[in-house]
């Protein structure tokens, strides 16, 4: 059973719709800590502001459920966009700490006339390691990005992919069963489908 965590800020429908196209596994959208505990895989999507996301997870009792499932049970988790930020230590976007499951921190892009903020658009992603995320990839991969905050610091051993927008930065990280992607695989056609398929296969 794949659980998509619904904490009130996520575009769960998009993730659900794409997953339904690539797997027959049961997909559940939930904010029930018990279901999160029972899931074989977790997806943490997200659109919105960092503090609100963290606060919602705490209020719903989900931050503990997620941390337990991921650290103790070893459940694979994929954080998408805001979800990826939430897995990290902190973000300049908010004051609350992240879940701290990945040694990374997020900062705001610097205002620029050429590279406008938020970054909105497709971009090439360069994967640094072979992993579930690259299993079905076919060489160069393109994904859709929408964000103003980016991963500015990351433990080098946890960097999974980089991309470029005025400068190179980390757009995917991984630490064992914990994955985070800055871009939106659920909005990236066949590239996103390939990535999600690799994650589902774990």
């Amino acid at each position, binding site marked *: 059973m794949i659980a998509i965590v619904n904490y009130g*800020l996520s*575009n*769960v*429908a*998009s993730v659900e*719709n*794409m997953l339904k*196209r690539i797997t027959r596994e049961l997909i559940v959208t939930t904010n029930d800590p018990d279901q999160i505990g029972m899931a074989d895989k977790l997806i943490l999507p997200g*659109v*919105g*502001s960092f503090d*609100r996301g963290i606060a919602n997870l705490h209020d719903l009792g989900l931050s503990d459920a997620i941390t337990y499932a991921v650290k103790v049970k070893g459940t694979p988790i994929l954080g998408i966009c805001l979800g990826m930020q939430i897995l990290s230590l902190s973000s300049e976007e908010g004051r609350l700490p992240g879940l701290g499951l990945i040694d990374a921190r997020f900062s705001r892009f610097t*205002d620029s*006339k*050429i*590279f*406008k*903020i*938020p970054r*909105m*658009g*497709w*971009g*090439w992603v360069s994967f640094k390691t072979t992993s579930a995320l690259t299993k079905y990839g076919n060489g*160069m991969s*393109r994904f*859709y990005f*929408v*964000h*103003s905050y980016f991963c500015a610091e990351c433990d080098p051993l946890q960097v999974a992919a980089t991309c*470029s*927008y005025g400068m190179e930065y980390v757009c995917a990280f991984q630490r064992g069963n914990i994955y985070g992607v800055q871009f*939106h695989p*659920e*909005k*990236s*056609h*066949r590239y*996103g*489908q390939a990535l999600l398929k690799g994650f589902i296969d774990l």
Partner: protein
Amino acid sequence: MSLCVRSREELTRLIPCVLLLNGAAVKTRKFKMPEYVGDPINIVKIFSDKCADELIVLDIGATVAAADPNYSLLEALCSQASMPMCYGGGIRSLKQAERLHQLGFERISVSAYALERPEFVKEYARCFGSQSIVITLDIEWSTLLRKYIITSHNRKRKWDLSICDALQRFQDLGAGELVISNTALDGTEAGYDQKLIQMCSNNSLLPIVPLGGASSVKDMQNAIQVSGASGAAAGSIFIYRKPHRAVLPNYPTHEFE
């Protein structure tokens, strides 16, 4: 300002725009004479299968009717889309916006209401983040006033606000993007008003996307590479096929695919 430092793939945002009226997909000409062009669910599926970069869905009847978005139809549209989706038409509350996000729309476009109550933009950005709010400005050249003017409600209302002031205002309020919809060029395939696009991109830090008048993919690429737009939207050239203007949703294949 030099655009040559940006890599080619960053410049790719060719965005089909699908108009809805009473649940059907339509195409207009200068915001008038809506012509039926098909089942919107099927059209969205076609654009998704063809790997369109993004899609904008605008309900052109919603604002005037002061109606809620047609959620069940929009849900069906999103279920067919594997690319980013933006919806506009009759949005007046955060509650509506939240519902649309839950359905699967990445972004919301606000037009008339952003002019009526600009603070809504700030409230929205605080709640959902700047990147998910787009302001669509319906703009036309007024030969009488010898300047560009902003309209709303299908050109029935005119606003006493200069384009530059509007750009600054919405930038300050936290909008994520501005769609410059040229009402006089709508449906004409006569070519974008590149000067208007340049003026807007030179006077705003926000991404600018033109809509209305695109004559070809090259015209759209010029808007991006020469006039400074961040993406380009079009209806007619993606819905109709020349020379007989048959309805045939189409989308160019990227060179790298």
